[in-house]
């Protein structure tokens, strides 16, 4: 199968709408297809991967821990918009420590989250073959 660059564009926070959980479900299935996968978190999408989510009070499933599994599925390019974080008073240290083991570097554990500027995201997006927005 030819390899294409797939980008999953996340711009909304979790729970208020279904898009966050259902887009993560697509990403997990996509892992089996061995394509070049990136996730982009911008606007309120950055809240999907904020550390410390607790849904006990709203009676909904807390699926945020599922993001930790992405590294095991070779999904390790999680681009987060620097501007979106800053606008929201957030920094990289507010995000979940999502990691993967780099098989090309002695299985060293490395961060999957890459905070990027809008200009950098522009370049990344322009390389994509398929862009799924949710």
């Amino acid at each position, binding site marked *: 199968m030819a390899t294409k660059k797939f980008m999953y564009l996340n*711009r909304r926070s979790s729970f208020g709408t279904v898009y966050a959980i259902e887009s993560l479900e697509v990403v997990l299935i996509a892992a089996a297809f061995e394509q070049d996968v990136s996730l982009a978190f911008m*606007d309120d999408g950055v809240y999907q991967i904020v550390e410390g989510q607790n849904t006990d009070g709203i009676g909904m499933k807390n699926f945020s821990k599922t993001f930790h599994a992405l590294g095991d599925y070779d999904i390790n390019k999680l681009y987060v918009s620097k501007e979106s974080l800053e606008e929201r008073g957030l920094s990289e240290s507010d995000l979940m420590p999502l990691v993967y083991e780099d098989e090309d570097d002695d299985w060293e554990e490395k961060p999957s989250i890459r905070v990027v500027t809008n200009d950098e995201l*522009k*370049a990344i997006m*322009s390389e*994509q073959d*398929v862009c799924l927005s949710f």
Partner: protein
Amino acid sequence: MLHTVNKSSFERNSLQSCLNTIDDTSVILFIEDGVINAANNANSSMIADLAANGRVFALQGDVEARGISSKLADNIKLVDYAGFVDLVVEHGTPVSWV
């Protein structure tokens, strides 16, 4: 790339987010409520330069449906659905800003 925007900038920040990440050769097509962005209004400066460079399109059917055919900003190029298809063919990966 072809960027489609289906929301007015008065309703959501989708247009701004699109503009933050659009590269130098991509084009924007306004569809559905997004055609409001093609009208002369307080936010028109957001797309004035892009439109002057021929990079802003709007779906004609959506413009007419909303009664804004005579209120469009300068340099907006109207297309029908066949034109929408042509834009996707010509400009590569479509990105949908909702």
